[in-house]
């Protein structure tokens, strides 16, 4: 067994018992990266050319390697959001979530690939080329946090961070066969996360066991004065325990989603999971979410694009990133910088966002979407009066081939139906591994009311015990 194959809590125990050293872990992970990266292409920027100094040798994560999605700001280290427009920008500050990991001793191996500005669900909309699924390198790893999921799946690092605006953690976790957790909106500070849809974005971890997710959540969660949407006075204890039970808990499936077509391995996984839950003493019920089923996708894109186009107004070539020196006047400068700097999908969403908020249409689209969002939140709130958690797919299908869906953007948008309502209502969502279909992993999703993060992960521990943990993917290495 190589060190890179060990899960996070095992590594921490081994380090404590001095079975191996941080340097040995670093070398093992680096070797694994060197072995697979040509096939997977998870990195935008590698920082593992030499062992990094450990900020806190006594921290919980002292010497543990990690990677960050490249929309998390890292002081002095290039941060691109997978866009040309940020050029060679090196932020002068650290994102709060990374600062917390660093202060706990984590070591950065690099910044990983994503869809440009987190817009996409394949990790193919990147100015740096697509990332490949470590389980089958002809397939997509999912997105937008595809690099973060692939890196954990292939054994580059035991855990990573990504961000989730409409499923960008949960979907790639499912596609790559790892656990991915999207916390309640406000649980983790967004300071230093390059914004896509500010009211939807949330940072969360990827790992190969639920226990490791709990460990990372205990470090990165909490109030941050730099993020007004991070919540105060909420105490959450993510301490791992095997002594947990779901006896008497109500777990529901969504009535309106019943008739939707799913790939056979996914519907099989739901049946198996329901059986496990029942055996553990949970009560399986059904809830109705008619507004979510009908309007969530339209509502989500209207809001995400409206917020996105204002979040991306700051990229004008004046202060940082890509710029042109020979423009005739400021207007030409803005036009040339933004025309060249943004990729096609980002431009499409900027234009859509501009149209949706344009004064003559604003009421009809943007304002209407904010109202629908309130209805969706109310609908979930009602549903969670009848159930503790909802069990549902992450996606209707298993990961597709790279380049497959490029022509039909709308199909990509609708594939997010199971993930994005969670962001609209600010709920937590856990993407968990259920097994393999051939060489492809199959994931499902648990969602719960706001601030149910701790008990959701506890439930994840029980599911993992029965469903088994994922293996390290072969990373295209024969």
């Amino acid at each position: 067994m190589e060190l890179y194959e060990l899960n996070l809590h095992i590594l921490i125990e081994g380090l404590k018992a001095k079975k191996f050293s941080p340097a040995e872990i670093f070398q093992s992970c680096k070797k694994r990266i060197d072995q697979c990266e040509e096939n997977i292409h998870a990195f935008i920027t590698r920082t593992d050319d030499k062992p990094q100094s450990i900020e806190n040798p006594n921290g919980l994560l002292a010497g543990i390697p990690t990677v960050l999605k490249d929309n998390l700001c890292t002081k002095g280290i290039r941060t691109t959001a997978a866009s040309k427009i940020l050029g060679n920008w090196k932020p002068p500050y650290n994102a709060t979530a990374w600062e917390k990991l660093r202060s706990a001793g984590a070591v950065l191996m690099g910044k990983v690939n994503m869809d440009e500005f987190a817009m996409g669900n394949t990790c193919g909309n990147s100015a740096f080329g697509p990332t490949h699924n470590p389980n089958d390198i002809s397939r997509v790893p999912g997105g937008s946090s595809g690099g973060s999921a692939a890196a954990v799946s292939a054994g580059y690092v035991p855990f990573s961070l990504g961000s989730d605006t409409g499923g960008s953690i949960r979907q790639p976790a499912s596609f790559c066969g790892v656990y991915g957790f999207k916390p309640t909106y406000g649980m983790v500070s967004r300071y230093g996360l390059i914004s896509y849809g500010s009211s939807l974005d949330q940072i969360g971890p990827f790992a190969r066991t639920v226990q490791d997710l709990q460990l990372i959540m205990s470090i990165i969660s909490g109030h941050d004065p730099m993020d007004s949407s991070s919540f105060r006075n909420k105490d959450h204890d993510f301490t791992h325990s095997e002594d947990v039970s779901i006896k008497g808990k109500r777990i529901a499936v969504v009535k309106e989603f019943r008739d939707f077509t799913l790939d056979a391995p996914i519907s099989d996984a739901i049946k198996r999971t329901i059986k496990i839950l029942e055996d553990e003493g949970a009560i399986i019920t059904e809830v109705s979410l008619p507004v979510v089923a009908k309007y969530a996708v339209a509502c989500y894109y209207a809001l995400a694009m409206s917020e996105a186009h204002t979040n991306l107004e700051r990229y004008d070539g004046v202060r940082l990133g890509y710029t042109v020196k020979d423009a005739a006047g400021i207007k030409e400068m803005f036009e040339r910088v933004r025309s060249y700097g943004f990729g096609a999908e980002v431009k499409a969403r900027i234009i859509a966002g501009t149209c949706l908020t344009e004064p003559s249409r604003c009421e009809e689209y943007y304002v209407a979407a904010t109202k629908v969002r309130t209805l969706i939140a109310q609908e979930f709130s009602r549903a969670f009066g009848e159930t503790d958690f909802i069990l549902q797919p992450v996606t209707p299908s298993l990961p597709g081939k790279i380049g497959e869906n490029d022509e039909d953007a709308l199909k990509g948008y609708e594939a997010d139906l199971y993930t994005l309502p969670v962001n609209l209502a600010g709920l937590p969502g856990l993407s968990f591994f259920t097994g393999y279909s051939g060489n492809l992993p199959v994931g499902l999703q648990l969602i719960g009311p706001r601030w149910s993060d701790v008990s959701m992960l506890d439930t994840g521990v029980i599911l993992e015990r029965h469903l088994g943990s994922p293996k390290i993917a072969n990373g295209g290495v024969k």
Partner: protein
Amino acid sequence: MAELTFTPVIGIEIHIRLKSDSKLFCSCSTNTDAPANTNICPVCMGLPGTLPHLNHRIVEQGMLAGFALNCGIRHKSLFFRKSYFYPDLPKGHQVSQCDLPITTSGYIEVHDSEGKLKKIRVHHLHLEEDVGSLHHSASDGRLEGAATSYVDYNRSGTPLAEIVSEPDVSSAKEAVEYVMTLRRRVIYSGASDVELEKGMMRFDANVSMKCSDGRWGKKVEVKNMNSFKALEHAIEFEIKRQKKIMLQGGEVKQETRHWNDAKGITSSSRVKESYRKFIVEPDLPPLYISQEWIDRVASRMPEMPDVRANRYVNDWEIPQEVADVLTDDKNLADYFESCVSSGANPVRAAHWVRTEVLRVLNEKGQKIADFSIKPEVLAGLVKRVDEGKLSTTQGKEVFDYMCANNSGIDDSVKALGITEGGIAGNALNDIIASVIAANPDVLDEIKSGRDKKGKKLKFLQGLVMKETKGQAKPQEVAEAIAEAVK
């Protein structure tokens, strides 16, 4: 045919810099005089990944300014993103409360053309962040045509209150009174120092004309006025321009015009006003203000200048005109009231402050806060004059001496050789004796009865007055001399 008359319809938008040590959404210093780009951080530079966090002390400054304009405070207000592209705007949008502001409506009173009080309604006041400042290499100092432009972000994120009036203003004169009264009240509230020379108050005016024949001209937005004079002249110019167009049967175009202070004209903006749109700022939660918070801030509101002036007139019988001058500057009024509470007669103290103190401040270009004579000292001087220990002339001499030499009353009196209470009795008799002794021929003439017209007596009186440096009462001198020559 009856002559056409025109009524100007004017609304005024004012931007005021609120007083605060730190910026609206980050903790950077608001000192904009610092070397370029030294008071900046990732937040006010709008760097990717940064988020605004609201400075709650500035919210209180906004509330104070709102109270000064007779506005109510909303329990819930929101921040919006106001989008447009410009190099001094780091995020490509300005964070502003434009659509759901912190205050409800209010008003400011001005005098109309007949001298009657009239309310100019304030639509609302809202909080927003300022932008950076541009420095262009072009000769006219504007962006268009400049070969190089530099951006200083020190000002980016400094707190502004935007105050929007209803179109209740009918003349340039009313406009100026509106902004002057408003400025005075805001300064009183402590919300802002509103130092005009530092660009802490900027004006835009919406001007349109209503004609007696029923025509109503389109609204023209005039921008770029930074002084009361500029505001007055720009409005006057615009009224004349629009009137002329309408008299010739033309139509006033709805547009934005730029006031050129040097040329004294408005001209059509060369840059097309980029269209703006708003979405809710998703990075800031709604601003909730409890009644308790409102009450706490309201309790800090000082007496407003007009109320204060009325109190001077009613309680102390100070003339309205003097009361207005004293209350124009809060610090001056505070100074005056300190004099009174130190025992000076209010009416006399008012005149002293009004004439002497203001004269010296003007001469020295000083502010009342830097004035060397403390109010309790001035009160002492006023009292001595009041009690007749010093004549009014002597009082003023002592005052000037104190100002010039930074000395106390007693030292100044001594240095000026003044005898307090004047020269009378034996001291006066001694002087008279010596004067008479030095002029025996005059005495002879009087004694011989040849001084029929009393000219010689007057002559002696003059000499004595001169000798006493005017410190004796003329009546007493005359009587004493008459006695001495008997």
